């Protein structure tokens, strides 16, 4: 009798540990947000990827439809080659375009994919040609200053 209640407590203890691990994997880790089910690989070339990292989300209309698998550099075109693992549940037209977006002002960068109008869908190994690079804050500021300076010059005349 005494032994049995003790087993119950040990079982509870181990169960608590498993629950804690489950919590860490599901709630803290990225296991739940994207299942590593069937994916197809597509590539996209960007002039500048900014702070994009592997494992960053690929979103369409705000929904995660894939993840960045790999980032490499092509020294022929001097562009960044980003390999995307797209969930096979979601199909996109061949002429879809991708751009690098930022969640919030200083948040994580992710890839936004907007569907095109082609009747054929993207297949594994395809390359997405229409890409838009990350917005680099310094470029933006210098452009802004430049145009301001140009405006100022016009006004004073």
């Amino acid at each position, binding site marked *: 009798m005494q*032994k049995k209640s*003790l*087993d119950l*407590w*040990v079982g*509870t*203890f*181990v169960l*608590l*540990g498993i*629950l*804690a*691990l489950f*919590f*860490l*994997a599901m*709630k*803290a*880790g*990225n*296991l*739940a*947000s994207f299942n590593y089910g069937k994916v197809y690989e597509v590539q996209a070339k960007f002039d500048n990827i900014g702070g994009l990292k592997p*494992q*960053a*989300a690929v979103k369409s209309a705000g929904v995660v439809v894939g993840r960045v698998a790999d980032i490499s550099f092509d020294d022929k075109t001097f562009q960044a080659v980003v390999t995307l693992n797209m969930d096979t549940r979601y199909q996109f037209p061949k002429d879809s375009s991708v751009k690098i977006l930022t969640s*919030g002002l*200083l*948040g*994580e960068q992710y890839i936004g994919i907007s569907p095109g109008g082609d009747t054929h869908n993207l297949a594994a190994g395809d390359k997405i040609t229409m890409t838009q690079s990350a917005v680099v804050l310094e470029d933006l500021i210098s452009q802004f200053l430049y145009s301001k300076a140009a405006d100022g010059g016009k006004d004073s005349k």
Partner: protein
Amino acid sequence: MIVQAISSLGQSVREWIENLGYAARTLFAMLGTSLGLLRRPRLVTDQIHFIGNYSLVIIGVSGLFVGFVLGLQGYYTLNKYGSEQALGLLVALSLTRELGPVVTALLFAGRAGTSLTAEIGLMKAGEQLSAMEMMAVNPLQRVIAPRFWAGVIAMPVLAAIFSAVGILGGYIVGVKMIGVDEGAFWSQMQGGVDIWKDVANGVLKSVVFGFAVTFIALFQGYEAQPTPEGVSRATTRTVVIASLTVLWLDFMLTALMFN
């Protein structure tokens, strides 16, 4: 005078190495007898109850408070860069990678390790271990091995509970009290915490720590001087050696896993 100093230094080094060899021999002898435990798993579950369940309260409460403090301190630092939203990520990474296993191991050495040393030491002082040998019962198998495996099993469980409770603590302070956006707290955490690189490495660390702390505690008890003073010294040594070993192992493991 100098010769004496050198010779005593040499003697202490020699004793230290001898002890290390004796510890390794004990470890292998104990591991060798461990298969017999499969026939009597009750011995291990009894000890898991003693080591694990009774440590739950201290681990849970410490985890909660460490989480609270991480929430406050992390917010203070991140706020300077205007990126409070990464608070969840900071709390989760610090806990799963580092604080969970290490703080749990230190508390474990203090809470469970000392009680193991004192228990075995008193058994030895009361000649219970010798009595067992007289009855052809191997004390390594009957007394040491179940406690060892119970410690190795209980430690990762406790560390996982510590990390999970700590994240909840960070959530309570960060989201409920300070008002960090709840969605950002969890999504940044999920975006940045990797199952294998962060969570699994933390679990691996805690298994290694459990192995080290439990064995040090048992060994100190096993070779304690069979006097009240000897047991008290062995208990102190358990805490000192186990804590230092944990911190040293932590550095080694982190350096190995860091890439």
